[in-house]
């Protein structure tokens, strides 16, 4: 996953976890059962339009709200490669890394793109959009280790030698 491209879906500021997956669907058995309801309070039908390899570009405070880990799991289950936002809420950030969902912080991209545009991400380096380059910073080492292991479950399996 050194370099990848994808079509983008554009969302606003403060996309909270109740928007990503409303509480009423949290007791469904699997994240696959929940995925069709993703983003439904804000954009019903969006989950059905997202295709594998797409990218979400959002404003500030993405993932604010509850600790529900289904939020990043569902985004991953929908096939989203990564979420690029101006900033992320703390618990969502940890949950995403622990589930192997790549997050990238960038302040400028959101206001420069339109939905449906294509962007190219070079890991720990930059995002390219219509000829403009947006540099990105790399994640701390301990987080890269979890991401590279494929998430926290796999990292713990390695620890427990299974």
């Amino acid at each position, binding site marked *: 996953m050194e370099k990848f491209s994808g079509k983008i879906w554009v969302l606003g500021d403060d996309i909270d976890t109740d928007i990503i997956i409303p509480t009423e669907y949290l007791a469904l058995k699997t994240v696959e059962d929940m995925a069709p309801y993703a983003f439904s309070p804000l954009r019903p039908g969006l989950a059905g339009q997202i295709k594998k390899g797409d990218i979400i570009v959002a404003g500030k405070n993405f993932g604010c709200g509850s600790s529900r880990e289904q939020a990043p799991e569902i985004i991953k289950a929908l096939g989203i490669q990564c979420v690029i936002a101006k900033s992320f809420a703390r*618990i969502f950030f940890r949950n995403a890394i622990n589930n192997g969902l790549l997050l990238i912080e960038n302040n400028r991209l959101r206001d420069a793109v339109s939905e449906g545009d294509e962007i190219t991400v070079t890991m720990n380096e930059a995002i390219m959009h219509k000829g403009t380059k947006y540099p990105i910073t790399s994640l701390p080492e301990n987080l890269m280790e979890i991401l590279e292991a494929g998430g926290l479950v796999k990292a713990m399996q390695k620890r427990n030698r299974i």
Partner: protein
Amino acid sequence: MGLTVIEKIIRNNVGREVKPGEIVTVNVDRVMIHDIFIPFVAAKFEEMGFQKLWDADKAVLIYDHLVPASQVDDTRHFKIGNEFVHKYGMKNIHRADGICHQLMTEAGYVKPGNIVFGTDSHTTTYGCVGAFSSGIGYTEMASILGTGTLWMKVPETIKVNITGTLPKNVMAKDIILRLIGDLGADGATYKALEFSGDTVGQMSVASRMSMSNMAVEAGAKCALFTPDDKTAEYCGITLTDKEKDLAGDSDAQYCRIINYKAEDFVPVMACPSNVDNIKPVSELEGTSIDQVFIGSCTNGRLEDLMAAAEILKGKKVAPFVKLIVTPASRKIYREAIENGTMAVLAQAGAIITHPGCGLCCGRTGGILTDGERVVATNNRNFLGRMGTSKVEIYLASPKSAAACAVAGKIVVP
């Protein structure tokens, strides 16, 4: 150089001085898991290959979001939870005693200076007794259950200093709502909040709970109050020197200091549908409402119910308004019966429910529909939180909520 409260708590835990930005591995003193996430925690724990809990006595399982069950599927969570408790020798389980964040301090699981994690964002609540506590997801919870440790970044601290006496009918809830409005919904992201000043010193632990509970709505990692005599009495302990020392040093480094005069606060509400969309109640007067909710881990304590009862005494809820009251725990429910509060609320026309989380997160009871408006004392007014995405939620203090219930519209208490 001096230290902030969070820097002291982490120093005491890891045995050396720490600086903001550093990544450290802490030893966890207590964890809380609730019914919604226990099936996922249990599955991840076994998937990770753990055979036993690092310390069964340090784990607490609380059924609250789904109690009592409203759908057949909910019972699956209790079945898996009970099996997990039995299999791994857990003793700390509450099946119908109240809301997790109330029980963790009320039942004595959290003490000043502790480091606590819970599978719920409002785990920040235990900062009310000077504990570092924060929400995490179920995968991290499973890893703590196996290892007893978690990595964290030492946060920077925002100090909030409040001095003076609050005006009548202004509650701790009005302070924290105003602060969230001033900071913005992401204004304290990754940061610790530290409260100080004589206004805070005069506050009950229950009021401090309302504030630390909602700190996460500004993105805060934790919200800390210095342990004092009130904390000691609430926790049923005598404070040690180490616990008394959990105050910010005069030369500690803060990334921001905010000063408030208590006299300047007024009753406010968080308007639809962002927690930082704060307006004085006086600007919203006359807005019609359909329902009022008094309860939740933010405002379901005895002082909240008594504050509502003070306003509702001898009055009736407007005929077209449903007032729903949910005590935060069984103990509070009993105390409110014993001191006559429940009788006042019932006579005013309140619907009184069992302790739990169902209503606050739109899971059981009190669901609203398109175009309806609710004044609620809980902590989130997100789209779809208490029914459809076209429900308007106004977050308020118990006094404001009670006054609105009587008037049938938004009014200043």
